[in-house]
């Protein structure tokens, strides 16, 4: 926000630079080139966008209609069989897929509420002016700049049943060892806890930007009317945060639904395949076992679920507005 005005404050130097350019002679080829200019500006990006975004979005669907083994030359067309087999009783792929969808759903259901509420509380504290505010903000955000691979190996160590730091602490308090990595429900506590630790700062930062957009004068007016803290929170802060809440809710749900690295590195899907998420199963099926047709079909099905969820979120917030 504050980066912009600083840089705008020096237009003098810029004027000098371009004043040196001579006035152009309006030649016809130059004109034609000018008409092409927007497309030339776009060309490099559009090339990448077409090859790696537009084409794959459709090509993926094409793959899902085939029995597509990456290693086999023959990739017969099978219509919607890769989809219908997911709904067929007794199909192993179908069983594994829905088990992984259940794991994803469980993770979303546990992690999203925590990732909506805790960062909001942190943001409310950080929104006040007090010495050291930016230092605390920087500390809470820090884990987010680390990748999921570091978070994964670190938490697998911290939560190790025998030599992990957490069980050592609990042992000092006289609490028995807990199998954080292999027992339901502890393994969910581990995955959710690691994720909250990792991304709390991210959501807090987004909330904080939203809080700063709510005018001081609104609070002052409410105080004149005798509003207490709770009134102000409920009638000014929450409505003022509405657009930010929609954004945070949506991206948190989508991020949690895309969970992969934590399960792969922390719980490794254990116990059994109970914490193997949909993304983890789809990736294994498609790029581990090379049954890419199946995997592509699953990814489109997952997308349908995510679209439905996002629409539900928007509907919820719209209803709330009325």
């Amino acid at each position: 926000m504050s980066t912009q005005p600083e840089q705008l404050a020096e237009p003098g130097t810029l004027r000098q630079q371009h004043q040196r350019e001579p006035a152009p002679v309006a030649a016809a080829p130059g004109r034609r080139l000018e008409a092409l200019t927007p497309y030339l500006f776009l060309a490099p990006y559009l090339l990448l966008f077409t090859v790696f975004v537009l084409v794959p979005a459709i090509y993926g669907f094409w793959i899902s209609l085939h029995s597509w083994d990456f290693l086999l030359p023959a990739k017969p067309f099978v219509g919607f069989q890769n989809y219908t087999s997911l709904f067929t009783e007794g199909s192993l792929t179908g069983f594994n897929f829905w088990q992984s969808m259940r794991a994803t759903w469980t993770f979303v259901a546990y992690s999203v509420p925590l990732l909506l509420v805790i960062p909001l509380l942190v943001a409310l504290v950080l929104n006040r002016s007090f010495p050291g505010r930016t230092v605390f903000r920087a500390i809470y955000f820090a884990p987010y700049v680390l990748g999921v691979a570091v978070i994964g190996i670190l938490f697998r160590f911290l939560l190790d049943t025998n030599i992990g730091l957490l069980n050592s602490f609990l042992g000092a308090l006289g609490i028995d060892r807990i199998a954080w990595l292999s027992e339901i429900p502890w393994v969910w506590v581990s995955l959710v806890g690691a994720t909250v630790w990792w991304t709390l700062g991210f959501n807090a930062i987004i909330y904080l930007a939203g809080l700063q957009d709510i005018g001081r004068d609104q609070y002052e007016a409410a105080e004149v009317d005798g509003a207490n803290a709770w009134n102000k929170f409920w009638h000014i802060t929450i409505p003022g945060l509405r657009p930010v809440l929609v954004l945070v809710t949506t991206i948190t749900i989508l991020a949690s639904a895309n969970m992969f690295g934590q399960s792969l590195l922390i719980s490794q899907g254990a116990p059994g395949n109970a914490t193997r998420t949909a993304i983890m199963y789809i990736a294994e099926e498609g790029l581990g076992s090379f049954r890419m047709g199946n995997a592509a079909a699953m990814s489109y099905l997952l997308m349908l679920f995510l679209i439905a969820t996002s629409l539900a979120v928007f509907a919820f917030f719209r209803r709330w507005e009325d």
Partner: protein
Amino acid sequence: MSVRRDQTAVAPSQHADPQPAGGGKRVGKAVLTYVLLIALSVIFIAPLLWMLSTSLKSQQAATQSTINVIPEEVNTTAYETITRPGTDTPVMRWFLNSMVAATAHAVLVVVVCAPAAYALARLEFKGKRLLYAVILATLFIPPIIFLMPNFDIVSRLGWLDTLFALIIPPAAGAFGVFFLRQFFSGLPVELEEAARVDGAKTWQTFMRVIVPLSKPALSTLLLLAFLTNWNDFLWPVYVLFSPERLTLPPGLSRLQGAYTINYPVIMAGGVIASIPVLALYVFAQRYIIEGVSRSGIKG
């Protein structure tokens, strides 16, 4: 709730509170708030310190159940293990690969997205609205959709098991264009008009007026693209295979597989993967936090 009440106490209207008793209460609350803030900071910092500390212990020392934050004696076996020539887990090689990939990717993103974003923000051409709508819409497609088809495309290009697979396809994402278009749209039009009156061509206006004005936004995007690429996990796990071709994130996964409970070695890998991004964060914290809060991206 108590938090909110505190806020009114530091707000400009605080002189409205005449009772001296409120002052003592306020100090008490301030102390409580700091205690909570510091406790939370410990929760965030301690695991990172533990990672560093463990990486400097012998495997035996790391297995003891006593909690020694400062190792009794500094032991560099873990680092020697992963830097030994001929190892299957050449962490420094992965570091180099990650550095090359993330740097090249970040530069590519900025160079390719900036002109495109400028065209979408300022230039007039047929189909502009539709094109921008299509680009934006792809931001909402879950990344898993692209995994199978892009694996196939990258394999046809001969990029499997090469850093090209990490540098180029991810640069096609809509985020950079979206981020920069927002910024360019917010710049005052007058400067470009002045340049045009002075006879500058569109490209010259872009290079000499817009780019210098946009340095903060361009560097923020550069940083975010670097961080995203450095941390990218799912894609490199599947497109890179050879031990000497990996980047750090899939490498750490291999390290975990190879050393299972030899945690000093695994933590040493974690330390090496964390140092560059944490250093970058310390120096460019404001850019990173502001960039993230302005755009709301999530890894």
